[in-house]
């Protein structure tokens, strides 16, 4: 009986020790665990995409004049929470459409005061911006010169602001329309001009 009691005491003591050991193990493990902080810094990014390599403004002139209107879609994305600004200006000092020694001059209109096209001029417009009016502008090919208002693409040093936003943007699109009005006094040829879209974060 006594032996049995001693054995039981040993058993109880052993069990208690085992229990303490079992409880102590996770405590020790917990004490050894180190915290890991996940940190991530995202760089501000801006991207600009245009749908056209060249916006074609082909026209078959008539004596009274014809107008061709075509569009370019500019897509901007940024993760900057202050948004972005999109500007448009000439790439070089030339504001005319040039074909060798021949040229078609830029519209005399401006973004704030655009004008309807006159024969042998070209320009741009963005519906709803500046004085262009809401539109909606549609494409045209060698049609009679209409009343849609256009402006000259400004010089490189003073580009026009097309869009300014105040939040992040994911594939935000802006449609820029280019118009050419010509009559038969314009010499035939391949007329070109380069413009620059500039996107910066705010």
């Amino acid at each position: 009986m006594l032996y049995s009691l001693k054995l039981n005491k040993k058993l109880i003591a052993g069990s208690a020790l085992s229990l303490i050991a079992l409880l102590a193990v996770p405590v020790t493990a917990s004490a050894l665990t180190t915290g890991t902080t996940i940190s991530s810094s995202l760089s501000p990014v801006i991207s600009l995409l245009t749908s056209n390599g060249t916006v074609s403004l082909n026209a078959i002139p008539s004596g009274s004049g014809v107008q061709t209107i075509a569009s370019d879609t500019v897509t901007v994305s940024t993760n900057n929470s202050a948004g972005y600004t999109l500007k448009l200006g000439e790439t070089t000092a030339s504001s005319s459409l040039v074909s060798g020694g021949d040229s078609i001059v830029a519209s005399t209109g401006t973004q704030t005061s655009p004008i309807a096209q006159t024969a042998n001029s070209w320009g741009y417009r963005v519906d709803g911006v500046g004085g262009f009016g809401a539109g909606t502008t549609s494409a045209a090919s060698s049609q009679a010169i209409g009343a849609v208002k256009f402006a000259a693409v400004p010089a490189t040093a003073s580009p026009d602001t097309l869009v300014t936003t105040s939040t992040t943007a994911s594939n935000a699109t802006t449609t820029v329309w280019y118009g050419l009005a010509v009559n038969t006094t314009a010499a035939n040829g391949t007329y070109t001009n380069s413009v620059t879209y500039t996107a910066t974060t705010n």
Partner: protein
Amino acid sequence: MITQYRSPTVLQLIRITTAFLIGAILVILFAAQTHAETPGLSITMSPSSTELHAKPGESATGTFTIVNQGTSSYPALLTVAPYHVEGVAYDPQFTLLPGTTDAASWVKLNTTESPTLGSNSTTTVTYTLNVPAGTAPGGYYAVIFAETNPTPNDSGITPHNRVGNILYITVDGTIEQKGTLKTPSSDTPGIIFGTNADLGVLVSNNGGLHFVTTANIKVKSLFGRTLFAGEFERYILPQTERLITTSWNNLPPIGIYTLSRDATIAGKVQSLPDRYIVIVQPWVLAFIAVIIILLGALAISSRRKKVSKEKETSDASV
């Protein structure tokens, strides 16, 4: 009814031809779809803004990455230009502000050539900022541009796509940093009848170095419930004022609310005095007008009945 019987070889030929035609149509459709999804000229720049620090006479280096996610390859033109802003709307300008230092001339790109970016390719460019000795401590600004430089291939307009990395340069030294939080000149009206309200603050920087402000705009009910809350982080360049605006849309039909605004200016929080704004939707006004008219009509009708009843009573008594 005419039934045509064909030999197994003819049937097999028809099946093969049909399968080929279906396959060809699918390929053409897929190709057309792929072509429609093909992006034009794409250029991405990261980072789009960089903070640089250097002491007068010392230099700092930075890097940026240009990505062409499009299908067309192009030579990327890299340039550095001055940077400043105009007006409270912060219209960016890439020309030198008269009377200021041209920090763009301090930046030297560690590449002499225009890197050609193939389709789905990336290029990392390193640059060095060399601050001339004797430069006054303060904030200086420039922008590095990366631009697509395509060759015109048709009659018309050839667009160049240009993205910028704005450099916020701090020339270390003793620089005074100060500014004020102001009420915008065209502040939110006291009574709003529309469905949207423009809310804003004007942050001015009167010091010599840029800072990032965190502006908080909140609208609460008289019981303290927040109905609108916006937090805006913006760069404020020295000697400029920046208007930070937001729009509170879908206004409640009617009520009196408290507009509270604060912002961190050079590390310290400044607040504008709280303002009460009253909101009444036009349809609520119309509803109130109809109720008043109805109540008026009811009162007049009731009075007429009363007068008529009194007249009848007096007539009866006579």
